[in-house]
């Protein structure tokens, strides 16, 4: 496998391709979080092969449709570069206090437009395997957070929040402005997780959880 040959042949990843990658990553990340934190019963999830490992995806149709709608809109926003953060907030069902916040930062990778005149066409595009490996490591890390995240005993629900630019085109009747569901500063702990990047987007992950004392 000659990497140079590959990079020469491979097209640099497009915005759309990167968007698809990122959206797909979110889907699997959200599912993994929902499974790991027990927001939905474990029976609801079944295993599929993705990114070279088995990941869990919900079978519950209602949840699947719900996520699909959200992700579609997020994908649209990603194309326009309007979204900056994606947050999966896990809140207690009864008291509505946020227990965990999984924050995914979305940054656009700055490409020097005039740089590298010699290789104007091909900026060294990142091999898909490498992107997959990075995603794999994030998912594994999310799973491993169970070791330090406080156990959640109560029934929980999740909310997906999106931080967008003001200029973003928001379908008014579908998305509403809301409270960011932030955890009280005195009670929160943060752990920064790994990140991955395609050539267009850079995703950073972080989890902040509610921790008493």
């Amino acid at each position: 496998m000659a990497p140079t040959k590959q990079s020469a042949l491979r097209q640099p990843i497009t915005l759309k391709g990167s968007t698809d990658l990122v959206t797909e990553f979110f889907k699997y990340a959200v599912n993994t979080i929902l499974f790991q934190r027990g927001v939905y019963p474990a029976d609801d999830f079944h295993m599929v092969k993705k990114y070279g490992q088995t990941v869990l995806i919900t079978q519950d149709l209602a949840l699947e449709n719900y996520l699909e709608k959200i992700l579609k809109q997020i994908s649209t926003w990603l194309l326009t570069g309007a979204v900056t953060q994606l947050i999966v907030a896990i809140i207690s069902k009864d008291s509505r206090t946020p227990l965990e916040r999984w924050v995914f930062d979305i940054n656009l990778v700055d490409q020097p437009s005039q740089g590298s005149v010699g290789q104007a066409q091909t900026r060294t595009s990142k091999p898909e395997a490498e992107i997959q490996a990075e995603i794999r490591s994030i998912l594994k890390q999310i799973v491993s957070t169970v070791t330090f995240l406080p156990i959640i005993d109560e029934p929980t629900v999740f909310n997906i929040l999106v931080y967008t630019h003001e200029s973003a085109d928001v379908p008014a009747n579908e998305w509403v402005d809301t409270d960011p569901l932030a955890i009280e500063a005195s009670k929160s702990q943060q752990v920064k997780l790994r990140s991955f990047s395609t050539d267009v987007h850079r995703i950073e992950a972080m989890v902040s959880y509610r921790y008493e004392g």
Partner: protein
Amino acid sequence: MAFNPKTPTRHRSRSDVAKTPLTPSIITGLNNVSIYSPAAKTGGNKSSKYSIADITNPFISRSRPASPVKRATSGTIQVSESLQRQANSGVIRKGGIESKLDVVSRDYVPPPKQEAKRSRSTPAMRDSRDRFITNREVTEVAATLDLVSLNPTSTSPGHTARLVAATGVPLNKRVLAYHEAPPAASDTTLTQQRELARPLYARPGALASSSGVATNRSRKIATQPERVLDAPGMVDDFYLNLLSWSVQNVVAVALSENTYIWRADTGAVVQVGEAPEGTYVSSVDFSNDGAFLGIGVGSGEVELWGVETGQKLRSMSGHQAQIAALSWHGHILSSACGDGSIWHHDVRIARHKVMELLGHNGEVCGLKWRADGELLASGGNDNVVNIWDGRLGDVTESSRGVARWTKRNHTAAVKALAWCPWQPSLLASGGGTNDATVHIWNSTTGGRLHSLKTPAQVTSVQWSPHRKEFLTTHGYPTNAIMVHAYPSLERVAEIRDAHDSRVLFSCVSPAGDMVCTGAGDENLKFWRIWEIPPTKKKKEKQEGRSLTGSGILSLR
């Protein structure tokens, strides 16, 4: 402290209120300010920094640093300084002056990543948000902000930009959520229901099945017999052995005093023999080649009949009680008697009794030769399994045999005995009602290899010639036919209520796919339990019935 943040300034606002409990941080800020001031005189750097703080707040008049008097007004500077610091460290208090004035047309939200920085650098200032005021404050701020007629455009864009750069909080951010709530997780009652429903789709054998037939998902064993023959007069006696299937594909069944043979190929039924007056047939067994049929009767005689001719060839007497079991090996026909004795008869010679085996105190109801003739297994009403040396050698009439192994593990009568066709040393024995256990023995070492507890009395056991499985038939209370895997002893199939009464007799077809069972309900049922592996068929034809069955062992 002279500089009480509570001191009303013209900038008194929510921020001050918010700052009330944050005195320590303010003091720290104050101290920092005081440190800076002397340095400002000397080092230009710091002063420039200081001046930057000035610029950020247009409302703050430029004041000389380090002037204690000015501190009152520079209290705002100091506020901004500490605010700046906090901002640099990633914190902005809600309702901070800057934020209030410049920005937030929407609810202000400290982004979570700021919290990360905050915890590292300034733990003292961690409590940026008022502990005592909840999120409500945000909306209240918004309300008052409107009153304060804030207008983002009224401040200098440079200031805003610097603020953005300083705080890292983008001003024009919206926090959006999908208007629908996520679907509720199925509540615990549903999971409980799922648990209850689990037996319905669970693999059989994993759960105690209440009724009906259970088979593996992958194995399809017909739950209905392929053929049912009427067998009027079949005696419902546990201790008898009234069924035999020859290699010629002929089934012999004894009904009271008559014996019939049914040809499986043609379906023809012929009566073979009739027991002498006043007695009944207690056991039947075909010879190894299928040419002769031995019939034991209740009075103790052993009759020899030719299958093709249908004629009685001889009658061997001597036993004192009913002949409950017969087993052939070549020209030796062994008979098991109700008095506990086992005789070997050489059917070719006139003085047929060649050996006597005494090892049982109760009626011997199970008798099986090993296919190679090395060993003979017998089971009795005394719960004992004896494994005898099969060599007869130079024997006289009075020769006594000695059991090589005597096993007393069973707690009930042992009628079910079977030698494994593909592993010659294996012997399976099954116990009666009290026991209901199948033990598998290694006849070479005498060790007990496996034990399988079954739910009902074991009336017979048959090994599969082609698969590593064995079949057991049962009486009280399930009347079932069960197929087990070996050596895992996993239950492959169970056919409950195979008969209306106890399934007492069974025999395997020479092809190895059908099992014939008989019961006191006067039915003879033929079940297709196993499939004949196609390749093995050819092998079988070539080798005849291969005893070692090396090909079979390579299966699975």
